[in-house]
């Protein structure tokens, strides 16, 4: 297994040099040279080369026969308030994928003996596009625990053989799906922001890569199911329609779980609903100090907004992690995002650039945040924000 440059094809254009995430390629004597120590064989240079001059010779992942795999299966995550809304988002995308493949769309719920086989939960997903609903029931599924839920999902996948399995990239989905994928020895793509079907009928999964600086399209060619977790609030929710669907209820006994949930605590201080807020007021490095967040909080309260943050204030301990927006924090999609003293790193933009409207307040006229802003205020936030608060207060 190795990577090499076909000398006669390469014309030294250097596209590969700038695209390599590991800085492993240089142009020497007019030809690309790959430093094998630095190269990770990630393969991103191969399709990027305009002259097909880079090849990776590999033994492909041992292909297995997957002709009998059909259908798109969505993991039906349940929260204290019912079906997690990411499931509704997955239903709109899942419907699109299933239609392209000419196959069925299924939602799988895992729950205890009381889990309803009809009513709001089941009707809600059918109305939003599911052809079929599997409900797998046992007392062990009363609350979410990774091990028994893995058993349940693996059982369903082995029995019904879906070609695609999707779940929300929530803390639950991102804990459960890796375990399922590892047991099935198949591929799993984390935190996708786009899904499509290509001409070969493969699921093309788009996600931010290398720290969110670039996007990658990923496929899982030789194993089934093709699995992905999908970022919340990136895709549109499916709309309800008058539809009918089939419901299959099954009892299944998992292995006795080794972990035990002692308590599930709702912590109001941590629950700030950034993801559901219409307006977010967010602070960055320009805030300078923990106590200055009170200024932003005041503005947020006046606007009925939630309080967000970029990464530096969280790293410096000015504000808890639960407020962090961005690549390693939350993805938000409010109506209005007001960025105060945020320069707009790629990592931050990854978490907020799909907001409907963006207002940026920053001293530096060249700050990258202005590139995504609908309204950019070049000015000191410590002058502009107090003036704004004063005006909002006087208008009552």
């Amino acid at each position, binding site marked *: 297994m190795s990577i090499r440059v076909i000398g006669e094809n390469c014309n030294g254009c250097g596209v590969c040099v700038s695209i390599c995430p590991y800085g492993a390629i240089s142009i020497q004597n007019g030809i690309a040279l790959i430093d094998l120590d630095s190269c990770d064989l990630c393969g991103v240079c191969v399709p990027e080369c305009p002259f097909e001059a880079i090849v990776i010779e590999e033994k492909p992942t041992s292909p297995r026969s997957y002709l009998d795999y059909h259908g798109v299966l969505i993991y039906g995550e349940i929260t204290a308030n019912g079906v997690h809304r990411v499931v509704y988002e997955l239903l709109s995308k899942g419907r699109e994928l299933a239609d392209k493949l000419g196959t069925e769309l299924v939602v799988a719920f895992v729950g205890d003996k009381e889990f309803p086989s009809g009513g709001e939960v089941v009707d809600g997903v059918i109305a939003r596009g599911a052809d079929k609903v599997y409900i797998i029931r046992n007392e062990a599924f009363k609350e979410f625990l990774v091990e028994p839920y893995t058993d349940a999902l693996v059982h369903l996948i082995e029995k019904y053989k879906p070609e695609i399995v999707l779940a929300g990239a929530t803390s639950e989905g991102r804990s459960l799906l890796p*375990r399922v994928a590892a047991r099935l020895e198949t591929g799993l793509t984390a935190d996708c922001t786009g899904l499509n079907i290509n001409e070969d009928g493969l699921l093309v999964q788009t996600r931010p890569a290398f720290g969110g600086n670039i996007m990658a399209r990923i496929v*899982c060619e030789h194993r089934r199911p093709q699995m992905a977790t999908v970022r919340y609030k990136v895709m549109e929710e499916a709309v309800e329609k008058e539809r009918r669907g089939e419901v299959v209820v099954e009892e299944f006994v998992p292995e006795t779980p080794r972990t035990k949930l002692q308590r599930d605590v709702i912590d109001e201080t941590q629950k700030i609903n950034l993801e559901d807020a219409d307006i977010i007021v967010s602070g960055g490095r320009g805030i300078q100090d923990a106590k200055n967040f009170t200024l932003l909080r005041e503005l947020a309260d006046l606007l009925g907004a939630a309080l967000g943050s970029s990464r530096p204030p969280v790293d410096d301990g000015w504000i808890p992690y639960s407020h962090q927006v961005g690549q390693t924090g939350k993805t938000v999609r409010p109506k209005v995002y007001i960025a105060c003293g945020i320069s707009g790193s790629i990592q931050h933009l990854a978490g907020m650039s799909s907001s409907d409207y963006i207002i940026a307040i920053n001293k530096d006229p060249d700050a990258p945040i202005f590139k995504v802003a609908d309204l950019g205020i070049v*000015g000191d936030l410590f002058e502009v924000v107090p003036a704004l608060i004063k005006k909002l207060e006087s208008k009552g």
Partner: protein
Amino acid sequence: MRIIVCIKQVPDTQDIKIDPDTNTLIREGVPSVMNPLDAYALEEAIRIREKGEAEVIAISMGPPQAEDALREAIGMGADGAVLLTDMKFKGADTLATSSTLGKTIEKIGNYDLILCGKQATDGDTAQVGPEIAEFLGIPQVTYVRKIEEINEKGAVVERMTEWGYQVIETPLPALLTVVKEINVPRLPSLRGKIRAKSAEIPHWGLRDIEVEEEKVGLSGSPTRVIEIFTPERKKSGEKFTGTREEAAEKIIEFLKGVSS
């Protein structure tokens, strides 16, 4: 108690900048560092050792220069380290990475606790931890923000959720992935640095961990990158410079405009 901490060497993403003209990454001079989130896992392991008897071993898979991240780990206080490095390990996705690390952990043996950072800052998948746990057939708890109790038999931990936290009891051996709320990692001490400099870090390859070639590296990776592209930057709206009052008025007008 034997604690194994999984560490990844990553480019310092804080330092990565975009060339505004070509819209490509500027990688020159971007140093490689220990994945910042792994430092929390290592710190927690060292704290457990400080309270009782434990041995802390750091492992990493990567190119030969990933040894630097392991020396950093020894500098912080790890007792020993192993580097998995082999041409055959290259091009691994999360499945192949976790089977390689899983085999390594089995080879080291007698482990009680595996600690990982929540995710690595370059890939951001958060998948390798749970996948290792599955390979080893041991319980996992992700997003751990506190270890309330731990002894040879089991642990009680707090797992962060979107709505608060859960208290979960698990027997050992188990794998935990930790979030940054768990502690404040120490800096390497001078003594640690000296020890790190001379510490011997064995390099293990394919043959050393007795893993089938088709389970590691590119051949063990079901997923494949077929294209990469720079994300589109949408709109660039009005840029306003004026007095604070004018700016405030502008914002209020804008808010009125979009809410109607």
